[in-house]
């Protein structure tokens, strides 16, 4: 019972912070609201009994990636004068594209009333022991391939960041 209330409370907060990200004028405020939204999403993970995912979510997204976002925005010092001016045609086409996306979303969600769970939800799957066993036994190859992908991205970023390649 209490988890239902918590779910609705957290969902309300998440949507509210997500809207604040879009609507706040100051980019630094936007980033801080995004951090709050990440925290509420971590709360959702805890409700699903996935504490490991919640902790890693906070460490990686709120603790590292958003700090770098904040870093860049603070150093750029964005304000009214430096804001790029967009032509009205661009705004017009953006509205049409977003409206089309809305139509597609509504159309796809309309038929999705009776979703059946394909397999039973295991409440303990989010605990770190079970997660580790699943990752390293059942999904070892995809796990290793995605880690190589991340490594390649990291090496690529370092190469691009170098001033001159000899």
């Amino acid at each position, binding site marked *: 019972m209490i988890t239902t209330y918590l779910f609705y409370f957290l969902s309300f907060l998440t949507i509210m912070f997500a809207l604040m990200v879009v609507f706040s004028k100051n980019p*630094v405020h936007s980033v801080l609201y995004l951090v709050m939204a990440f925290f509420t999403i971590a709360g959702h993970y805890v409700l699903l009994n996935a504490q490991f995912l919640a902790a890693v979510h906070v460490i990686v997204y709120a*603790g590292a990636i958003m*700090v770098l976002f904040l*870093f860049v925005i603070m150093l750029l010092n964005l304000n009214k004068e430096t804001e790029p001016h967009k032509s009205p045609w661009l705004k017009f086409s953006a509205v049409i594209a977003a409206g089309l996306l809305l139509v597609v979303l509504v159309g796809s969600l309309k038929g999705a009333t009776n979703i059946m769970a394909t397999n039973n939800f295991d409440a303990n799957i989010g605990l770190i022991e079970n997660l580790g066993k699943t990752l390293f036994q059942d999904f070892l190859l995809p796990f290793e391939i995605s880690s190589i992908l991340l490594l390649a991205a990291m090496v690529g970023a370092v190469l691009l960041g170098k001033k001159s390649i000899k």
Partner: protein
Amino acid sequence: MALQTYIIYKLILVLVVFAFTMLIAMYSTYAERKVAGFLQDRLGPNRAGWFGILQPVADAVKLFMKEETIPSVSNKTLFIIGPALSLLTACMTGVVIPWGTTITLFGENFPLQIADVNIGILYLFGVVSIGVYGIMIGGWASNNKYSLLGAVRASSQMISYEVAMGLSIIALIMTTGTLSVGQIAAQQHGWHWNVLVQPLGCLIFIICAFAETNRAPFDLPECEQELVGGYHTEYSSMKMGFYLFAEYINMFISATVISTFYFGGYNMPFIGRFVHDANLLTLCGVVFLFAKIFFGIFFFMWVRWTLPRFRYDQLMNLGWKALIPLSILNIVLTGAWMMRHEIMAYLNF
């Protein structure tokens, strides 16, 4: 245990831990000046009270009474949130620390740990990683070049050293096989201290703890010669007090975490031979833990008043080119040692 007793007990424990954290942070400021005096052959504060014992109280009164200035061009909300966030994240870490085993009163067991979550280490790590926001927000909201530079330095330093810290912790998790801080402390019963199993990991962790708390020799975010006061240049009165207080709380928590992870926590060898009452044994454990913590705090101060400050490129080189490769080497060595029988069998020895 009934639910009401449980909730009341946990609330009392939270209050006690909070009060002790504040008291120790307060007297750490006094101890810092006394230790500095001792190391520099001076007397240190000795006017307020007996041996200057009331000095922290006098400092607190001074900070509360001072005029509070908020720069007119700054972002006022964020300017106030900054120090509050710093102090909040500093206080949040004490929750998962096991301060002792259990006390048995009226037939009920009371564990001296607020929450033994099964991802305790990750919780600690998460709180440390969001601790940087207080400094960044405060430094940016001040609308001052020096504050911003200090904040940027602080955050890049903390992010860099978090990597090495996390890697050194991974080797510890491999040997202990658990992420629960309570279990790690319990495993070190007797002489099974983790520092004997993980000497290199312990050294890396301690160095990273110095960088995470922004203490000398890594106190670049607030070095006076280059940045006036760093991220708290524009702060005055108790808001500056909050930042300084958060630093001392972080130092206390770092000393606690180092003692718990690597130096046995509340365990002390041979004490079981002399004390047989369970409650007395628990109290002895708490005393031993605090003895280790106080030595840790003294060590922090000892280093601060002995070593000069690093240059910024030296700091980054140490973090990325020395500590991270060393901690990866530590992980590989630990893994090889744990799999030594399998490796030997594979090589037909």
